[in-house]
């Protein structure tokens, strides 16, 4: 910030055609003031730069006027005509600097309309956050050091693209919903009546809301009973006592006693009988299943003949007694119901303190769901269409006569024979083995010679040394050559490059491997700023682009040097890594050149919007 203010003679025009009111234009850091020469004139202006979002200026040309147009974000614009271009240019530069975010200030210019002006210093909280981020992330720190300290980018630009990192309010909020617990805590089986009472009291006194939610979610009949009975007919305490007594009765596995008690006490009956809401829901769900699904059943699916997989609550002595059917409840059913509820997810927040409100909330939810389902008549239509079309099931059709052609498949050995010959041929080995040895061998002789060798070695023992040193050296050399030859590294794993196989020291020695891969992050950062500065409208952007371009050319030069200094063997993989980087940089440079050309030619052609 070199100047604190600029004072020039200018004419204020409300539009281009306006001859203009002569006066003095004073530009300070935060505002500009126009005082007309004529004290009676009403064309006084006092506008803060906060509201100015851009400026336009006419090109320098001998016959044209020197105009500067300051645009406000509300649409109004202020046009000033200057006596000379140099005056206009001075004002223009001042305006540019005033509008653009100053080097040490906070957010970008667009934030000017909200809150305090951007020329204020950074708040300490902001600085703290930045410093912490830099300490935590070393890569970020490296980039920061390279560019901001090196003068290529300003602080504001660097952090402008990282607003998300700085805003810790957003990051602390977890995006995940906590689900329901999957354990069935309240499948407690009271072993005596007294214990049932004890549990009921504990339940009530602690008002365990998530337990209540679980019970209400899994047993809609209980929920309905609660809504109906409490507090009209009985207190909450009584309700829960009855509920736990019912649980106790279930646990005794005495159906007869359960039926007897149910007959006496109406409310108890609700808890003992099967949940009819669930039953109707299940029926509805079954109706929605697509009957055209082809599901083949096999023996493994036959669970109907096993008595509840051994988990039955009731030792059914008299299984045909239908009057007690109503009171049977199996563990499997409870388990399934619980699983279904957990998978549905948490539909009600735990914050509701009152049991009653929880019950009501759950009921409301279920009603909404059923209303949605009922309105899906279109879906029903579609389904019934599908059903009628698929009425013809294939396995119920009569056999259609196909002429069956007999299959004659040749011996696979013939195929293999040729395969093997080909495979051997391609390996480039001479076919000495299979072709030449056509001599007729006597079995006896062959076996005999084998046995002789064995007894020979038995007598001789192992030779000392096993392998002669010259031979050993030859073998070693051959193997080492083979292992180190990079040709043989193809084929196995396309992602594993040769470079990964080298020990770290060699890598760094040979090609500054780590350096090359790190350059990528720097290049990306630079490119991001480069491309975001186009199209160049202000001098500020112009300067920025130039700085960024210089940094990019330096990196480009470094990459070229690496490529040329690398050894023969590794040239290919290295160039594979380096190439996308150079391509991106080349594209950026090309764009820069083209734009530069365009701008230099455009300045000769038409003026910048001003007639």
């Amino acid at each position, binding site marked *: 910030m070199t100047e604190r203010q600029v004072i020039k003679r200018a004419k204020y025009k409300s539009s281009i055609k306006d001859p203009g009111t002569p006066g003095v234009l004073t530009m300070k850091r935060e505002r500009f003031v126009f005082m007309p020469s004529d004290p009676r004139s009403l064309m006084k202006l006092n506008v803060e730069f906060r509201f100015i979002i851009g400026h336009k200026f006419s090109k320098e040309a001998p016959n044209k006027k020197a105009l500067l147009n300051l645009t406000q974000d509300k649409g109004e614009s202020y046009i000033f005509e200057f006596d000379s271009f140099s005056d206009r240019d001075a004002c223009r530069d001042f305006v540019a600097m005033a509008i653009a975010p100053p080097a040490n200030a906070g957010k970008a210019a667009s934030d000017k309309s909200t809150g305090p002006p951007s020329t204020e210093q950074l708040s300490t909280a902001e600085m703290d956050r930045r410093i912490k981020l830099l300490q935590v992330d070393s890569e970020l720190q490296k980039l920061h050091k390279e560019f901001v300290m090196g003068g290529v980018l300003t602080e504001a630009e660097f952090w402008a693209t990282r607003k998300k990192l700085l805003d810790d309010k957003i990051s602390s909020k977890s995006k995940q919903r906590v689900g329901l617990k999957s354990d069935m805590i309240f499948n407690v089986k009271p072993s005596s009546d007294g214990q049932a009472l004890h549990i009921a009291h504990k339940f009530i006194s602690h008002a365990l809301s998530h337990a209540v939610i679980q019970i209400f979610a899994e047993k809609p009949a209980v929920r309905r009973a609660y809504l109906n009975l409490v507090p009209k007919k009985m207190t909450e305490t009584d309700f829960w006592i009855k509920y736990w007594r019912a649980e106790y009765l279930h646990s005794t596995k005495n159906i007869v006693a359960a039926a007897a008690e149910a007959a006496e006490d109406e409310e108890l009956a609700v808890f003992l009988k099967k949940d009819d809401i669930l039953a109707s829901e299940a029926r509805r769900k079954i109706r929605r299943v697509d009957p055209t699904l082809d599901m083949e059943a096999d023996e493994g699916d036959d669970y109907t003949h096993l008595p509840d997989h051994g988990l039955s609550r009731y030792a059914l002595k008299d299984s045909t007694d239908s009057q007690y059917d109503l009171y049977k409840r199996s563990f499997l059913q409870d388990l399934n119901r619980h699983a279904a509820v957990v998978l549905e997810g948490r539909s009600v927040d735990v914050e509701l303190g009152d049991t009653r409100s929880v019950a009501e909330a759950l009921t409301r939810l279920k009603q909404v769901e059923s209303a949605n389902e009922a309105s899906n008549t279109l879906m029903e239509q579609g389904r019934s269409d599908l059903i009628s079309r698929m009425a013809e099931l294939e396995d119920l059709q009569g056999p259609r006569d196909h002429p069956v052609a007999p299959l004659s498949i040749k011996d696979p050995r013939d195929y293999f024979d040729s395969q093997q010959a080909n495979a051997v041929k391609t390996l480039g080995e001479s076919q000495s083995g299979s072709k030449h040895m056509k001599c007729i061998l006597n079995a006896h002789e062959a076996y005999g010679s*084998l046995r002789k060798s064995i007894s020979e070695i038995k007598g001789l023992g192992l030779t000392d040394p096993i392998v002669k040193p010259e031979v050993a050296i030859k073998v070693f050399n051959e193997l080492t050559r083979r292992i180190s030859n990079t040709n043989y590294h193809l084929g196995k794993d396309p992602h594993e490059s040769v470079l990964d196989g080298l020990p770290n020291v060699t890598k760094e020695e040979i090609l500054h491997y780590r350096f090359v891969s790190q350059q990528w992050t720097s290049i990306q950062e630079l490119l991001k700023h480069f491309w975001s500065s186009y199209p160049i409208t202000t001098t500020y952007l112009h300067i920025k682009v130039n700085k960024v371009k210089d940094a990019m050319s330096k990196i480009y030069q470094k990459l070229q040097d690496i490529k040329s200094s690398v050894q023969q063997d590794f040239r290919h993989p290295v160039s594979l890594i380096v190439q996308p980087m150079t391509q991106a940089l080349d594209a950026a440079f090309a764009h820069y050149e083209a734009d530069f050309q365009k701008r230099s030619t455009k300045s000769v052609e038409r003026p910048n919007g001003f007639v």
Partner: protein
Amino acid sequence: MTPVSKKLYTDDVSLLVVLIDTNPYFWSTSNQGLPYSKFLSHLIAFLNSILLLNQLNQVVVIATGINSCGHIYDSSLAPPNKRAETLLQKLEDFVLKDEELSAEDSVDGIKSSLLSGSLSLALCYIQRVFRSGTLHPQPRILCLHGSPDGPGQYVAVMNSIFSAQRSMLPIDSCVIGAQHSAFLQQASHITSGIYAKPQQLDGLFQYLSTLFATDLHSRSFIQLHKSVGVDFRASCFCHKSTIDMGYICSVCLSIFCKPHKKCSTCGSTFGQPQATVSSTSNLKRKAVDT
């Protein structure tokens, strides 16, 4: 076997099952290569060195004959100071038995040895080791083979290779014969083992101890022999030449390089051209794996 404490079971305890080729026709005619006695001496020295690497290492030797296969040596059962003698004795007995089983007196060319049989024996033994409990050495198979591949064993060998792959058993192969073995190449490729064909046969021991002595744990950080690659290309049924693109019969999946009217394998006629589908089924491109 006395129970061993867990502390002694380091990462590199290995069980090596060696399949040696006992094809008399092959050994008696390999004049430029290794005589059988030398081969045995290299082998015994190698087995000793394996047993020296770790106290708990185990070695099992299975012989691949022409008419039969059999267990020759098991280091956990044999007396420790008489290893070579036990091995050689059993080998001699095996050769005798194999000779008795042979039907013909003279043979044209070199017969192939029963690779599939010995692979199956090895796999069964290893399965037994797997089921002996959680504390067992890491098994691998080393195949020292020289005889040519027998096309009749193709299906059986491929089955054993796939079951080895399933149990994650590497099959290493060291081919001593004159030509490469397609079976063993595939075996090593699929099970990620090592395939080598030594050029200097009198340095066989050096090859064995450099390439094949590494246990499974160390293979993750030791750079070993990488094979050039297996040629998986198909060959056409009419000319037996390898092709990249061809025609396939949709009934039996046999491959042809030129369009035919009738499939020569299954006899189905191509030929009723439909509106959208061409009569000679799919045009398939085989990926060349090098």
